């Protein structure tokens, strides 16, 4: 029934959805193109090169062909000349209307001349004539091919009912180019998931071209109904003639778990963004950055316009900090605190909640003051920069160790000489000073972690020159960090979910001492950078302090006699240990800072060969034709270490780096070198982690990776960089 022709590298066939059609019905014709491996044919908009496949019908009277329904195409490489087309196979679908005045029992010869351009490395035009026969009858009988055709029909982009799309010019034209934002909201699920990737394939137009590169931008809107997935795509429009388009049309492509769906959209182009919409600086792009501003704008143009959004980010970031790895140990203290609070009068619980919040906020105010001071002194400020101070590290290590000993029950924290709770009492009653201290501790430990959302807000804050804005943002981070506890302390009823106080608390308290101890070990390890092998004396000092703590707990707090002698011994130990170990041996306030090791810095024999980062190293590697991966990290940045372990220093990424011949650079931010602070600020970040992937072309702008990495994200970026 169907006539088949094989020409060149594409095999064409004409299929019909019915063997017999009743006059008045519409049936489907399918022009099936099967391409040899590596060869492809083009979509209705071939893109920047190529040619759409054409079908010219020769139909008997009474049969009329409609427009071709094109299945969703793929974006074809190379990135420099983006085209849209099909690999392997495609079926172009055409509705055929059988006129009602035709008689049943006729045989209709349907013929189509199909011409196409097939390309691999080279392009070959192909053309052939295909034919099929259709009978008319009393009723329509579907053909054996109808099922296959239904499958292809399901790949044709649907109408965009579930998609609310809008478009606007982001900036005035720069010559014949102009950045366009296409934004929208999708209601529903794909493959049971929210779509994770969006793109836009434009319809062809002779007067302008919406270029292939799509840059994704995260979008925030004040419209409370706009819940994710909201997407925003930045495209460059090149105009050839006429006015800038007032309306655009094409297909929004979305993807989840490898499942792709297209939606037809047609939307007017507004001259400006809809009210209440803020776009974040580009954070992720499928093939690069826009031409006009090669580097993400330092801050959204009007600092104040973005402020409410930034305050929201600050608050959310603070909230998330509660569960970041560096703050996690403090949670032990807080949980115990809650259970104790729950036994107390609501009034006191509330007060303690507020005092805790005050502790957090005062710490954040202090941090804000430091940032303002540092900026005023003309230096760069960075989040977590106190970890660049050895004095801070020594103090914090000692403090954390004492907290651990306290949890182990070596000594109790009592304030104002109140009578101690009986030995059977499970935990010390944290009074107001205890709650305040918890707040400070939480803040101190939170600083080396930058929660994902916090990065944007802090990046914004560190670039501000207005002290009020810096203070506001820091306060909002504090609000976020303190919020859950304040809320719980004002609604003690919610605490009933926690188990009743009992003997388990004693064990839980001791168990929670271990993460604290681990934190102390981590901090101790940081001190090594400053003191080298002399860090031994810090260890000895810690042992002396621990001994003093035990004597204090055992003989001063719980002892029956000889308290005076015990206090003297404790003081002697502390003063002696400080003077000898810290001052005399360690020179703890003025350590000799060791320069970072030059040359390669491989973590393990088969690990990635890291070279030290410098501004010139990237260009040098690009000149040598290498893509570049840059990891800005710091010893005190836990997120960075986790990223490296999980997302970078893994076999698949190592192999990919080798395969694309990439150079890997590491920028060590442990001691806050100014040149790295400058680099971080360029990308709107206030701290590490920052991971960049540069294509090999000299001067090419990097792909900025998200804060939390997976091997997939890194591999994807490397692939894109290698292709460019």
């Amino acid at each position: 029934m169907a006539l088949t022709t094989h020409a060149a590298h594409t095999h064409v066939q004409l299929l019909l959805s019915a063997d017999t059609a009743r006059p008045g019905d519409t049936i489907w014709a399918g022009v099936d193109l099967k391409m040899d491996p590596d060869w492809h044919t083009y979509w209705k908009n071939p893109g920047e090169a190529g040619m759409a496949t054409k079908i010219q019908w020769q139909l008997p009277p009474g049969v009329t062909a409609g427009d071709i329904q094109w299945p969703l195409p793929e974006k074809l490489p190379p990135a420099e000349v983006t085209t849209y087309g099909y690999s392997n196979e495609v079926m172009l679908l055409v509705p055929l209307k059988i006129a009602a005045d035709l008689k049943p029992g006729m045989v209709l010869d349907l013929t189509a001349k199909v011409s196409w351009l097939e390309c691999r490395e080279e392009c070959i035009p192909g053309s052939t004539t295909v034919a099929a026969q259709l009978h008319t009858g009393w009723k329509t009988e579907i053909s054996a091919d109808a099922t296959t055709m239904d499958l292809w029909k399901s790949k044709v982009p649907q109408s965009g009912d579930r998609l609310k799309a809008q478009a606007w010019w982001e900036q005035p034209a720069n010559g014949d180019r102009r950045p366009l934002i296409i934004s929208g909201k999708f209601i529903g699920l794909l493959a049971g998931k929210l779509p994770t990737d969006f793109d836009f394939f434009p319809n062809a137009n002779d007067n302008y071209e919406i270029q292939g590169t799509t840059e994704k931008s995260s979008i925030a809107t004040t419209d409370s109904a706009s819940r994710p997935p909201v997407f925003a795509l930045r495209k460059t429009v090149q105009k050839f003639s006429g006015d800038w388009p007032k309306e655009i049309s094409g297909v929004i492509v979305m993807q989840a778990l490898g499942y792709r769906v297209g939606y037809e959209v047609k939307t007017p182009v507004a001259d400006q963004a809809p009210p209440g919409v803020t776009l974040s600086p580009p954070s992720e792009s499928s093939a690069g950055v826009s031409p006009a501003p090669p580097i993400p704008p330092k801050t959204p143009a009007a600092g104040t316009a973005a402020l409410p959004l930034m305050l929201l980010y600050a608050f959310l970031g603070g909230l998330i900090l509660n569960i970041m790895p560096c703050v996690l140990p403090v949670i032990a203290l807080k949980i115990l605190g809650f259970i104790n609070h729950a036994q107390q009068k609501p009034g006191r619980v509330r007060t303690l909640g507020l005092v805790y919040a005050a502790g957090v906020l005062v710490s954040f105010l202090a941090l804000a003051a430091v940032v303002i001071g540092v900026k005023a002194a003309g230096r760069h400020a960075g989040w977590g920069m106190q970890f660049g101070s050895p004095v801070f590290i020594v103090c914090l290590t000692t403090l954390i160790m004492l907290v651990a000993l306290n949890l182990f029950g070596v000594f109790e924290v009592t304030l104002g000489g109140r009578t101690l709770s009986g030995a059977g009492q499970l935990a010390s009653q944290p009074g107001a000073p205890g709650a305040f201290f918890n707040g400070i501790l939480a803040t101190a430990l939170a600083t080396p972690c930058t929660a994902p959302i916090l990065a944007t807000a802090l990046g914004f804050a560190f670039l501000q020159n207005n002290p009020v804005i810096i203070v506001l943002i820091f306060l909002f981070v504090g609000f976020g960090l303190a919020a859950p506890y304040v809320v719980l302390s004002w609604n003690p009823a919610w605490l009933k979910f926690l188990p009743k106080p009992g003997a388990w608390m004693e064990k839980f308290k001791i168990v929670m001492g271990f993460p604290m101890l681990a934190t102390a070990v981590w901090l101790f390890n940081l001190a090594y950078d400053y003191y080298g092998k002399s860090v031994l004396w810090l260890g000895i000092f810690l042992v002396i302090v621990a001994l003093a703590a035990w004597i204090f707990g055992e003989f001063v707090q719980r002892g029956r006699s000889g308290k005076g002698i015990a206090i003297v011994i404790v003081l002697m130990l502390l003063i002696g240990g400080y003077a000898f170990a810290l001052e005399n041996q360690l020179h703890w306030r003025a350590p000799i800072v060791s320069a970072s090791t030059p040359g390669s810095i491989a973590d393990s024999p088969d690990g990635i060969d890291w070279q030290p980062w410098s501004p010139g190293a990237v260009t040098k590697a690009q000149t040598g034709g290498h893509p570049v991966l840059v990891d800005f990290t710091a010893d005190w940045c836990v997120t960075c270490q986790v990223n490296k372990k999980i997302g970078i220093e893994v076999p698949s990424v190592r192999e990919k780096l080798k395969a694309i011949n990439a150079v890997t650079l590491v920028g060590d931010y442990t001691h806050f070198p100014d040149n790295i602070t400058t680099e971080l600020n360029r990308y709107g970040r206030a701290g590490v982690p920052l991971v960049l992937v540069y294509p090999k072309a000299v001067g090419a702008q990097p792909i900025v990776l998200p804060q939390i990495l997976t091997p997939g994200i890194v591999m994807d970026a490397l692939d894109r960089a290698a292709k460019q």
Partner: protein
Amino acid sequence: MIMKTAFALVATLTLASAALAVEVGKPAPDFTATDINGKTIHLSDYKGKIVVLESYNSDCPFCHNQYKTGAMQALQRDFAAKGVVWLLVNSVNPNNASHRTPAQARAEMAAEKMDVTAWIDDSSGTVGHLYDMKTTPDMYVINKDGILVYQGAIDNRPDPFHDPTKAQNYVSAALDALLAGKPVAVTETKPYGCSVKYAD
């Protein structure tokens, strides 16, 4: 986009050229290149003359259609007689089957009876990237003052089988206007054809 910016940058660095963006109404960036006879060519050598750049790949059906019908050669011959400089730019990379060695190129030039000032061997893609040439054929017309006055398609029929003499040829229209001292009517069109086979 990043590619274009990046390659434009590479080109700029290599060629020490001042302009970055190729845009109608702006000076056409200068370049240094070698033709298939080993001669060094600077665009600036032709200051004071009208210059046509043609991005070329004879294996591309869209180019081939212009040559097999003799239309492109006729255009080259007519305007050469009027003092127009015509530079063929072949940016096909050496690993592609359509690449031509200088010897093959000289043979092809003779066989096709081309009448061009020079065939630039741009297998590195330097000139192609500098001008952001997307397709073959992609055409550029530069006036006597070195200003780009036309960029885009050769004609209005993006089809590898059409009769070029029946199409509206944008390049001959632009050249006629320049020679007559009139403004160029159509200054930019969407180029059509095969993608330029640049090196990766």
